[in-house]
């Protein structure tokens, strides 16, 4: 499974970013290779309008199986995410990336 976390930093101990569209970073963990990849999304977070769909488009380039975030994505971004077939888990907005991964593994996230 390739998992994308919306995060405020690039470390396992970084706080999750509860926002999807205007998340500061992507933290991507590939369970098979155990590799971590990060992407600085702050340019999109700075868009006046339509940050959600742009972030969803960027996310689609990473071909992830799972998205873990705080809440969202909203309206238009949700439509894009659905198209990519990515499974969305929310409710991890106040955790660290590591805690969010553990919560996901133990089935605590919806």
């Amino acid at each position, binding site marked *: 499974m390739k998992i994308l976390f919306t995060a405020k930093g690039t470390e396992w101990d970084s706080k999750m970013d509860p926002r999807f569209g*205007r998340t500061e970073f992507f933290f991507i963990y590939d369970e098979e290779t155990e590799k971590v990849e990060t992407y600085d999304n702050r340019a999109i977070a700075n868009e*006046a*309008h*339509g*940050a959600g769909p742009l972030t969803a488009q960027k996310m689609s380039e990473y071909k992830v199986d799972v998205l873990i975030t705080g*809440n969202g994505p909203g309206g238009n971004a949700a439509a894009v995410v659905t198209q990519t077939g990515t499974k969305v888990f929310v409710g991890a907005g106040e955790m660290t990336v590591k805690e969010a991964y553990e919560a996901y593994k133990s089935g605590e996230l919806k």
Partner: protein
Amino acid sequence: MKEIVIISGKGGTGKTSVTASLAYLANKDVIVADCDVDAADMHLLMKPINDRKEDFFSGVLPTIDQNKCIKCGKCASVCRWDAIPIIDNKYIVQPIDCEGCGYCARVCPADAISMNEQNVGDWIISDVKTNTKMVHARLGIGAENSGKLVAKVKNEAKVLAEKLNKDFIIVDGSPGIGCPVVSSLSGANLVVLVTEPSVAGIHDVKRVYELVKKFGIKAGCIINKADINTDKVQEIHQFLEAEDIQLISEIPYDENFTKAMTMGQTIVEFDPDGIGRILMNSWEKIKKIA
């Protein structure tokens, strides 16, 4: 720390009156954020002082370098908003008409058009009468609210709430269901829907709730002016039941709302034993479900 966002879909349901009352009741336990930036009026009730302002830049507009312009007219011909008329034999961008798409700059063969970030207003941190702080914004004439500005206001509120150890952020959400509302909802813990028993009130609260559902955020509802139409109140009840939204309270129509507003007071200050009591109970409930 919990973030509570108050929205209504329709304007005029009493969203800001309710938000200011909740902020008054919660007093120093909360940071207040006004994300209804297009028609901001929380400041009328919260009496902000000691403003600390910063410029806010958002969106881009083209500038045409008249020395480089070869007057080919390509920019004007591709502009979907007819925002580049010829004035005194010069192509001039009309900022009010321009949407900032950048098509003109892209097609200009003389490289005479640059896209520049706009200073659209300020965002402000103030001390308010409830012994806490409020984050708000003031837009320039013709400038519009954006998801970016709402995100900025909410983010600053969050930083303050963490620094000052506050339990809650109360957000006066943006109207409608567009980009600023999406941004208001993002990251929230609880949404309070303020509606009224009218055709438009019900229609709009249903639409905005569609958005809340996509975010998967818990919601509660306050029905304001609940005694003006009993049939429509029934319809709201049915909607709340079907969607499993908790009814927080029903507030009767009361002219004291307007009287309080003209005095620059929240209804809780103006009428503490009447409507004020209902809102007090509402705040207790909201704290529990947040």
